[in-house]
């Protein structure tokens, strides 16, 4: 008998083993839901899958009578727009500050402590300040995402820049490179794939801040909808929405992962990523 750590599932087995927990969760939900619905057909807490599918289909296909928009798509676009703008701004700031901090000791000495302190501020605690400063429009929500995500990206990229072997920086100088060239031709290309992977990790946080901001003040958005229908105990809306958000998050994550693998194969070989 092989040791447990040496037993690996076959290709089909891997799928099956991965699927199993999902099936178990679905079964548990179904049985609980059935039990409650048998007692009270109007129960709202654990709606039947058919009810959820119906509601979700309605939200995805029928126009809202008041606004004339299809609710699901309006919410999705609003949320994705905020999320992507926020993450893009964070990535841009994170990359430039991380690059400069990681590459120039003089700048690092000045800014690194500041970044560390800022990264320790709980972003939710300054949300009121953002609402006061930016109003309750889009700017405040995007600002919250930026404030929540950027310090992490900066610190991760700065750390990665510092971990690059000194030999490479010395080599670039012996090849005649000036400071600017070392930053743009040696550090920047090696930080870009790191940025993609750090952004993947940061997306979870970005979603958190997005939904929190939408829950507090918004007219549309996925988080807004969930917190709105909570008043009516509409689990048939909340649960599909949560699943939908999860799917969107998964797709974004996969998009970044694939892009990174295709564009920067050398990075993944270096990190020793297993396929």
């Amino acid at each position, binding site marked *: 008998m092989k040791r447990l750590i040496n037993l690996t599932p076959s290709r089909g087995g891997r799928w099956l083993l991965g699927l199993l927990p999902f099936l178990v969760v679905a079964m548990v939900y179904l049985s609980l839901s059935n039990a409650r619905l048998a007692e009270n057909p109007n129960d709202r807490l654990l709606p039947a899958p058919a009810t959820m599918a119906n509601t979700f289909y309605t939200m995805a296909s029928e126009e809202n009578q008041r606004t004339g928009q299809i609710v699901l798509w309006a919410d999705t676009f609003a949320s994705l727009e905020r999320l992507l703008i926020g993450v893009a701004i964070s990535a841009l700031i994170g990359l430039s500050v991380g690059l400069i901090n990681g590459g120039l000791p003089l700048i690092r000495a000045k800014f690194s402590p500041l970044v560390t302190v800022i990264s320790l501020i709980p972003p939710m605690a300054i949300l009121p300040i953002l609402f006061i400063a930016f109003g309750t429009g889009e700017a405040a929500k995007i600002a919250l995402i930026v404030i929540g995500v950027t310090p992490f990206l900066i610190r991760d990229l700065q750390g990665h820049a510092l971990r690059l*072997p*000194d*030999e*490479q920086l*010395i*080599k*670039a*100088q*012996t*090849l*005649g*490179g*000036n400071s*600017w*060239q070392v930053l*743009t*031709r*040696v550090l920047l*290309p*090696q930080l870009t794939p790191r940025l993609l992977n750090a952004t993947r990790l940061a997306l979870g946080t970005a979603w958190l801040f997005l939904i929190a901001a939408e829950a507090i003040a918004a007219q549309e958005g996925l988080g807004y909808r969930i917190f709105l229908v909570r008043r009516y105990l509409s689990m048939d809306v909340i649960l599909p929405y949560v699943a939908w958000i999860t799917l969107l998050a998964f797709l974004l994550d996969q998009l970044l992962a694939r892009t990174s693998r295709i564009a*920067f*194969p*050398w*990075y993944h*070989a*270096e990190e020793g990523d297993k396929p």
Partner: protein
Amino acid sequence: MSLLEAKRLEKHYGDHVVLERLDFRVEAGDFVTLVGASGCGKTTFLKMLLGTERISRGSLTLDQRPIPEEPGPDRGVVFQKYSVFPHLTVLGNVMIAEELSQSRWLGKSFGTARRQARDKAMARIEEVGLANALGKYPHELSGGMQQRLAIAQALMMRPRILLLDEPFGALDPGIRQDMHELILTLWKEQQLTIFMITHDLKEAFALGTRLWVFDKLRHDPQAPEAFGATITYDLPIGERQPPADLSARLSERGLKTLTQETLL
């Protein structure tokens, strides 16, 4: 005039003396191999040549000018590892040398300049025998091929001196033999001046025209850091074979040293 000259060169870290009493002249075309026990300051010496370690006292001049305190294109280098850029292909790794000097802002060239850089790089790549791996990234190359690439890269700038820090230390014996032939060919063809650190005394004899042994002349057991290492032997190597009586000749000088124990 000598290419490289040191006068009363010293290196300390605070009270810790690493190197002392270094006096030498090196002519263009010399192939100096540096041996010595671990931690005796060989690498520190190489870093002083490279410009990443500051000189504490004395002078070190290249072409009668003090060595600058940062690395520059007049001194090429190949480290044991991490010498090549992982994000560039073989061609990119060699071309970058030309591109950095052609385009001060972008560090990338286009059109005719790019073709010229490519041709120049191709010549270097062919010299080291990597012409059939142009599009490969360093992680796809073996250790020996990576070192070949690093050498091609360093030679792009036509450096006045080439510094090799145990370049073949991590390679298999067979590959090492090939690398020895390569570096000797390049040294002869391009009249390079080379400093090479090695742990392998046979390698030091096989390649060098001069062999330097780094060791401490004085040793105070109460204060082991009070005295630094220096070049205890500067052996001209004519026949490229270790003299049979080397061990005897070394101990004749009255020194039973750590270096002898580790090396001979």
